[in-house]
């Protein structure tokens, strides 16, 4: 790697910690970001001559803080100074650096930074870009590309999100244990949303969005290093690793979805799978199951199957049943039905999903799965109707194309008299 590339990686790795600490000093996101920016510029100038500092994050915080104090002073001449209470942390600007860079602070700094990005006043469409901009440091252009909107529209979205946060006020006191656990749960949800933005992309969008998956995993690892004994954070990290491991096999050359049973498993990423499995192993020891751990355990059973026919559907069905209990949702039941169809046949599976019809009447996958069960039972006319509904509800051409391939098979199978599956 060239020197510049090394500095670049170091700066982005130190970013969450540095901005988190600067936010604690200045209690203003814009000032914290500007301070970090300024510190990075100085790093680019000084590190090539002086060599990299031992603790890059501490260096950036120190330099950024000093730079921003200047900025705050300069601004004071242009407009009113912020409330003194807001800047109370500046009083002891002389306090020793060592004390300032206490590890315990880092933990809550980074959690706070992640947490304000998931402020309940912000819709998910703003939370994710904000986290990618502030915590991950992706450029507005990169984020705009991932979300298929123009750069100016994305700039506006992020600005709007920031002003909402400023208006709502950021919680700066160190959180108590219960509050910390709540923050962690909210942040975990946001990280999984980031992941799914990348993971759910198909077709031409997929390559542009794939980095979101890497970024989500990076954020989860960061969180896990701060909170190493949280089984749900282990579960979340494992879940994303195990899903992301299939990326190379998940989409065909045209970006259409390849079903798991048809994927070339030799293209799954063995290293990500190993890490995911190790994390689940750790999580299970805590005997505190949760939705992420259960989903990760399901993904692990898929990952462990060398061939599709080796999949342990009995275990998967049991895990979905547990997930249904702790996080009841028609979508979970629908997923369980797929496992049940492998264990007990399509008829039992169909019975399981029939009561879901009113709740899932607008859900593409419901009709896709229902059609598949009906097709397996040889109820071809009903299968056609279900597939027709699915195509009408498909949100991407890839989804519609996948259902059409079923319809083609039905047409093909019905041609010879009386043929069933």
């Amino acid at each position: 790697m060239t020197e510049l590339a090394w500095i670049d990686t170091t700066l982005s790795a130190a970013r969450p910690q540095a901005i988190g600490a600067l936010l604690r000093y200045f209690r203003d996101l814009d000032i914290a970001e500007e301070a970090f920016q300024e510190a990075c510029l100085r790093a680019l100038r000084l590190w090539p001559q002086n060599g990299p500092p031992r603790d890059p994050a501490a260096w950036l915080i120190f330099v950024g803080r000093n730079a921003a104090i200047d900025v705050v002073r300069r601004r004071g001449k242009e407009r009113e100074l912020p409330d003194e209470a807001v800047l109370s942390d500046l009083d002891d600007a002389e306090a020793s650096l060592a004390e300032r860079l206490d590890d315990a602070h880092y933990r809550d700094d980074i959690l706070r930074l992640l947490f304000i990005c998931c402020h309940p006043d912000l819709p998910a469409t703003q939370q994710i870009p904000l986290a990618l901009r502030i915590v991950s440091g992706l450029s507005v252009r990169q984020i705009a590309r991932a979300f298929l909107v123009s750069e100016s529209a994305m700039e506006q979205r992020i600005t709007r999100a920031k002003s909402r946060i400023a208006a709502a006020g950021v919680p700066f006191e160190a959180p108590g244990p219960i509050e910390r656990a709540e923050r962690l749960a909210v942040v975990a949800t946001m990280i999984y949303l980031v992941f799914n933005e990348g993971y759910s992309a198909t077709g031409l969008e997929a390559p542009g969005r794939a980095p979101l998956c890497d970024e989500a995993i990076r954020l989860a690892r960061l969180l896990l290093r701060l909170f190493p004994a949280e089984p749900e954070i282990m579960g979340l990290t494992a879940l994303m690793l195990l899903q992301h491991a299939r990326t190379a096999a998940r989409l065909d050359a045209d970006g259409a979805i390849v079903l798991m049973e048809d994927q070339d498993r030799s293209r799954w990423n063995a290293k990500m799978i190993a890490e995911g499995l190790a994390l689940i192993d750790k999580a299970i020891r805590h005997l505190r199951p949760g939705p992420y751990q259960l989903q990760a355990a399901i993904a692990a059973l898929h990952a462990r199957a060398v061939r599709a026919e080796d999949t342990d559907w009995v275990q998967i069905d049991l895990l979905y049943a547990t997930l249904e209990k702790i996080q009841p949702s028609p979508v979970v039941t629908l997923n369980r039905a797929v496992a049940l169809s492998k264990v007990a046949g399509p008829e039992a599976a169909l019975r399981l999903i029939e009561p879901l019809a009113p709740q899932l009447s607008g859900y593409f996958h419901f009709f896709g799965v229902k059609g598949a069960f009906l097709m397996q039972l040889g109820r071809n006319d009903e299968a056609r109707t279900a597939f027709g509904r699915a195509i009408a509800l498909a949100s991407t051409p890839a989804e519609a194309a996948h259902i059409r391939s079923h319809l083609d098979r039905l047409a093909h199978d019905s041609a010879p008299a009386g043929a069933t599956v």
Partner: protein
Amino acid sequence: MLYAILCYHSEDVVGSWTKEEDDAVMAKLAVVQEKLVREGRLGPVARLLPTTAATTLRKDREPPLVLDGPFAETKEQLLGFYLIEGESLDAVLDTAKELGKANPGGSYEIRPVGTFFPGPSAGAVAPGQSGEPKP
């Protein structure tokens, strides 16, 4: 004398490498390793999974304490390591506890190995050589 080279680096930085950057580093390392192989000097090489996958067994008490995360006690030093095959974390922890009984005090950090290269010359350099100079 047989030496271990212990690799330290910032996990944040290495974890931020793209696949291309990572592959490039590994390719450059492979060149050096091949040379060592030719010279008959290369033993096993292991690249560990991230510290987030680590578990620590504190064996300075009975029963020993299992903690999530890597070992981070600067008062103690790395004195050696084992490579152990195990079905699950629990199985490896059992082994570690057994070893800990034989040698109480300190800790073991248990970390899954990501990439492992046994090293063709391991047999030539390794057996029974505890670092004593040959007569």
